[in-house]
Structures are given as structure tokens and as C-alpha cells.
């Protein structure tokens, strides 16, 4: 199954205005001609509807995520998914040509011929001594007065599921996902067959009443964008949860924020790529297994007017 990644997350929310403003401040832009849709640079994005909107598929346990739409490489893949899933569940062909069904945990899923726009943008380049790839002379690493920072692409989604083995088996056996790494006793990181990214999905085993979404995230252009954009998000009044830091599995930079979506929303950058020669690692989950390092923000960093006698680091 040549599935290439997640392209749209559809939410049904209680406070539409707050959720829209949150995503605009996060960096997404309104999609031309699609008033419900906010997008990253490659056209992947989030669609927002009222929780009461009857056109949305139902979700388990009041989860505000109502559908995860994945892209596929070609019509043959779409047909193959339809045939595979129709063996034991309803599969709808929607007017836009996409498929809609449900996974084994009860979350609505969709599939469409990929609409992800190709990007030809250099990522963050560091002037590491000896590296053949460096910024050209006079190109700055930090643009202090830079305008809005738009994320590049929808990255991944993390589900809380009551039965990890069952949920994992659906994605692996029915849809052809590969497990790239695993937290023992927690769940797998998975990539679809048409992507090299470390994960598009991560599953966390949790009590049935918790079923829902832990977080979703978009890729930014590099760690500087994540940290610069995250700092602006905090200055706008949003509340960080964890980060900024860098994960071990996937190596992606992360910064997690609370949100009005009832889940965390992450900003991430620079995730590892793996092909089918990769052998999955297994680790016990812990702070050290999850974060290579964690950074802290300081509002004051050098002595100056108003510095107390015992210094800025005094409690």
C-alpha cells in the first residue's frame, strides 16, 4: 500500500474561533477558497468544524479529532485500500474521490490521491567546519526581524488506544505500515510504505476512557524555526508543556504546547529517515529515552541595570 503520509486532520471543536486563532498563531495560513482549512507550505493542513457538524464522522470518547486523511501515491493504491478494507467494514467513496472508513480502534480514516505539493526549499544549513554544505557568504543564520514562520508539512499524529496490539496490527497488516521503533509497554512508531520519515503515527496504550489524541505536529524548516516560532507563541500567551528539546527516537526537535483541541500540539523539525533495511529499536520509556536534551528559556541572561547583588540566577 503506497500510502505517503498524513495530509489533513479534521477536527470538530467547541470553540471554533479560539482554535482557528491558535493555529494561525502557530503558523498555519488560511487555504484559498476553503474557509475551514488552514495549511502548511506544502498544502497539508487542518480543517476545523463545529463539534455538532452532522457531516463529520463520529469519534471515540468525545475526541475532537474526527478524521485523519492520508495521501496515497496512485489510483491503484486507493483501489487496493478500498478492496482490502471492504472485506470487513464499510468504505465510503466521497464526492471528492477520497475514501472514508474506520480503523480498528474506532478512529475515522480517509485516503486521497496525494495533494501534497512538492517543496523545493533548502532546510536549515549550519556552517559546520569541513562540511561541503554551508550557507553562502553573508547569508545569516538568524533573521531577527523575520516575519511569520509557516510550518512546511503535516508531520505526525499520536493516538491513545486501549488495545495497542490490535491497533498496530491494523496499520501493519491491513495498510502496510512499518514499525520503525518501539517503546516497550507503550507502543510503536510507524511509517507508511510510501514515506521514509521515522513516523507518521505513534500509538500509546492507555485506559479505554482516555482514548483520543496525545498530539499532532507539523515539520518546520529546522531547529531555529522551531525555537524562534515557539518563543513567539509563548510571547503571544500560549502555554508550553515540554521543550524545546530533541527526541532520541526520530531525532526530531520538539516543543509541545497545550491547546484548545484537548490534546497537545507540537512544533517539530529534522526527523530521521529510514528505509526498509532499518531494524526497529526497543526501549523502556523514560525521560532519558525520550529526550536527548531539553533546553530552558531565560528572559534575563546577562548582568545589567537592576541585577540583584546575588546575581540573575538567584532564586
Amino acid at each position, binding site marked *: 500500500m503506497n500510502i505517503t503520509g498524513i495530509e489533513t486532520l479534521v477536527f470538530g471543536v*467547541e*470553540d471554533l474561533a*479560539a482554535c482557528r486563532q*491558535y493555529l494561525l498563531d502557530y503558523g498555519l495560513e488560511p487555504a484559498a477558497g476553503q474557509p475551514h482549512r488552514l495549511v502548511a507550505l506544502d498544502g497539508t493542513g487542518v480543517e476545523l468544524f463545529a463539534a455538532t457538524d452532522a457531516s463529520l464522522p463520529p469519534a471515540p470518547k468525545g475526541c475532537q479529532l474526527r478524521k485523519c486523511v492520508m495521501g496515497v501515491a496512485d489510483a491503484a493504491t486507493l483501489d487496493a485500500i478500498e478492496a482490502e478494507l471492504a472485506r470487513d467494514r464499510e468504505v465510503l467513496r466521497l464526492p471528492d474521490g477520497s475514501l472514508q472508513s474506520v480503523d480498528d480502534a474506532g478512529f475515522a480514516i480517509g485516503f486521497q490521491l496525494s495533494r501534497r505539493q512538492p517543496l523545493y526549499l533548502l532546510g536549515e544549513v549550519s556552517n559546520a567546519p569541513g562540511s561541503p554544505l554551508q550557507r553562502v557568504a553573508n547569508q545569516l543564520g538568524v533573521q531577527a526581524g523575520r516575519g511569520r514562520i509557516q510550518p512546511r508539512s503535516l508531520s505526525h499524529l499520536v493516538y*491513545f488506544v486501549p488495545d495497542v496490539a490490535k491497533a498496530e496490527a491494523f496499520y501493519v497488516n491491513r495498510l502496510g505500515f512499518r514499525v520503525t521503533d518501539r517503546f516497550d509497554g507503550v507502543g510503536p512508531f510507524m511509517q507508511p510504505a510510501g514515506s521514509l520519515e521515522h513516523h507518521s503515527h505513534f500509538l500509546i496504550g*492507555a*485506559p479505554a*476512557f*482516555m482514548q*483520543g489524541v*496525545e498530539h499532532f505536529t507539523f515539520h518546520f524548516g529546522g531547529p531555529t524555526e522551531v525555537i524562534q516560532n515557539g518563543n513567539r507563541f*509563548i510571547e503571544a*500567551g*500560549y*502555554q*508550553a*508543556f515540554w521543550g524545546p528539546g530533541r527526541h532520541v527516537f526520530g531525532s526530531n526537535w520538539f516543543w509541545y*504546547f*497545550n*491547546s*484548545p483541541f*484537548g*490534546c*497537545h500540539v507540537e512544533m517539530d523539525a529534522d526527523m530521521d529517515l529510514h528505509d526498509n533495511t532499518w531494524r526497529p529499536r526497543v526501549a523502556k520509556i523514560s525521560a532519558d529515552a525520550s529526550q536527548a536534551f531539553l533546553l*530552558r*528559556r*531565560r*528572559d534575563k541572561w546577562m548582568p545589567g541595570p537592576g541585577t540583584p547583588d546575588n546575581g540573575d540566577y538567584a532564586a
Partner: protein
Amino acid sequence: MNAKLPVQAVPLCVASDLGEGEARGFLPDEDGQDRLFVLRHDGELHAWRNACPHVDGAPMAWRRHAYLSPDRQHVMCHAHGARFEPDTGLCVHGPCLGQALQRVPLTIDGEGQLWLARTEQTQPIE
């Protein structure tokens, strides 16, 4: 969020500034996260630590002062959607079902000023 509460009494705001169904955070730590928040429910003021019991001390608002559910009937943790009764702190929905928020003692002086009270209960959670 395990930043300590001050042991001395601290003025928070004029009590009447907080209307019914409103919440406000106070005493932000150096990460910009409130140590506590105060809300008015059925006329009464209640103060709680900004610390969801589902993960040790997780901060709860999604934006400064945004501690309530959209319908303003519950305190809500915007990490994973737990909901709490505003007057008892009891979790009635979500990952910490049956656990409770930590209450912070308040006093109001003769001029209507709301204070974080000085009591033994203002010791850090750690």
C-alpha cells in the same frame, strides 16, 4: 509545574474583578506558567494549583488564564482534556478521573483585596 508557592501572604487582585464563570492565573514562574489560578463559580471564589494530577504537575491552561472548558462549567486541563468540578476540584472526565486538584487557600481583606493566604498548606508539592 512544581514551582513553589510563596510562604508569605501575597495580594492577587481585587476580588470583585473576577466575575462569574471567569478564571485568572497568578504568580507566573520563570517559564511564564502560573503557579495558581482563581475562578468564580456560583458566586464563590476557588483557587487551585496550576498542576494537573494526571502528569506530575502538568500546566493546565492553553493560553494565559484559559483554564475553563468552552462552556465554562468545568476546569479543563488542555494537555489531554481532563475536566474538573470548579468548586471541588474533582476530576470528572479524562485521564485522572477520580483524582483532584490541589486547593490553594484564599482570604479577602476588609477592602475587598484577594490574597493568597499564609498557611501551612502553602508548602510546595514535591
